């Protein structure tokens, strides 16, 4: 007989025991471990997904921030560029203005320098001319010229205009001291008398006179009293000439200054 029924029964029991034992020691622990691992993996995946979403959000936020930063930077840059351009133009204008001013001032100072140089030159020339004239006239002056001068003086005295004559007469009459008559050379008594007579006739009064020698007159004669003076001398002419020359630069300087400003 191939089948032993006791063995069959024993093997059935053995197999059932084996099923229970394997369930207890093999399947359950292994399946539990697998389940636990799967849960861990699922949790990790969920976590990773959440982190991914979070990272995505962060990325979006950062990219937005970056974008706004870029925009702000571009705006600031353009504003700075505009400001720099404005500043550049302003500085250029300022510099141009400054240079114009400097040039004007330089021109002005050049003009002034030129002018003063001209003046100094003119003054020097004038002084030289006057000195030469004085020297030449002084060399030429002598008693015959003096006589001619006295004659001219005597001739011109009555020919004075009315207003000048009145002013001089008033001054002579209110004067207590004798009027001063100055001449370059000593006058002869004749000449003194002629002058006294001419003065008395001209002003219709007895005018006391005092005669004095003044070489500075070069040649000529001068009547001075109480601040009024009637003169006819070369020194007086030269003085008039000097005054006229001194006045000349003043009248010329104005057009010169205008020319300098145009340049």
């Amino acid at each position, binding site marked *: 007989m191939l089948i032993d029924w006791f063995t069959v029964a024993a093997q*059935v029991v053995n197999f059932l025991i084996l099923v229970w034992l394997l369930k207890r020691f*093999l399947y359950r*622990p*292994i399946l539990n471990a697998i389940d636990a691992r799967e849960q*861990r*993996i699922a949790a990790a995946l969920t976590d990773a997904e959440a982190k991914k979403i979070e990272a995505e959000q962060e990325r979006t936020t950062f990219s937005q921030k970056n974008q706004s930063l870029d925009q702000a930077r571009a705006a600031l840059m353009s504003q700075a560029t505009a400001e720099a351009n404005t500043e550049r133009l302003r500085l250029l204008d300022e510099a141009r203005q400054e240079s114009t001013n400097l040039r004007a001032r330089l021109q002005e100072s050049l003009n002034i320098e030129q002018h003063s140089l001209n003046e100094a030159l003119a003054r020097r020339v004038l002084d030289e001319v006057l000195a030469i004239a004085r020297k030449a006239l002084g060399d030429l002056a002598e008693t015959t010229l003096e006589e001619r001068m006295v004659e001219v003086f005597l001739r011109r005295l009555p020919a004075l205009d009315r207003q000048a004559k009145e002013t001089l007469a008033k001054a002579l009459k209110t004067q207590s001291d004798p009027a001063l008559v100055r001449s370059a050379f000593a006058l002869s008594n004749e000449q003194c008398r002629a002058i006294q007579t001419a003065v008395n006739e001209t002003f219709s009064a007895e005018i006391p006179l005092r005669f004095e020698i003044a070489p500075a007159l070069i040649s000529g004669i001068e009547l001075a009293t109480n601040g009024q003076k009637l003169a006819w001398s070369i020194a007086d002419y030269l003085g008039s000439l000097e005054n006229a020359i001194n006045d000349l630069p003043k009248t010329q300087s104005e057009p010169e200054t205008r020319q300098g400003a145009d340049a």
Partner: protein
Amino acid sequence: MHLSPDEIIFWQYGFIKLNVTIVTTWGLMGVLVIAAKLLTRERSTVLERSRWQNLLEIIVTGINQQISEVGLQQPQKYLGFLGSLFLFIATASLFTIVPGYDPPTGSLSTTTALAICVFVAVPLFGIQDQGLASYLKEYLKPTVIMLPFNIISELSRTLALAVRLFGNMMSGTMIIAILLTITPFIFPIALSVLGLLTGMVQAYIFSILAAVYIAAATRARQPAPE
């Protein structure tokens, strides 16, 4: 020369006896349980795990996958029964490489016992799944006339399970034993390798057929696949 390991008896008291089949079965049970106990002792639930645990996980998930491929919806419910069938038969075949070993599956008593277990488990799972009445109605389909044929089918497939496994396992050891007397060297090794292969195939066939029978008994309520 004996056909079945049942014939070698170590101890007997009345009809109670300890033969090679029972003792070897206990040995295999001990090996399986101790190995499982040892290998799952330091199981880890994190991604890093030992190679042995990996092997066990591959075996268990592989069996699980096979069961679900047969068509059973909750494979973990049947894993204990079907997985133990496979592991027991496979281990019994695997140890044929040990000289002097007689596989307990080479005994018709053992294969009959396993077939009886399947024979009982199929209606149990069926009734558990769809209820007694609904399960019994399956025997009357498509007509009442088919009832005896359905019952014959149940009995005959149990017999077929038992005899197929027994024949394959017994023949393997028998052929090796005969060849050892004729050509003691190369051929027994080649046949041994072939025996290992057929043993594994038989383990697979036995447990897959059991799964198919259980699936047939529990499938009634489930919608037909499109």
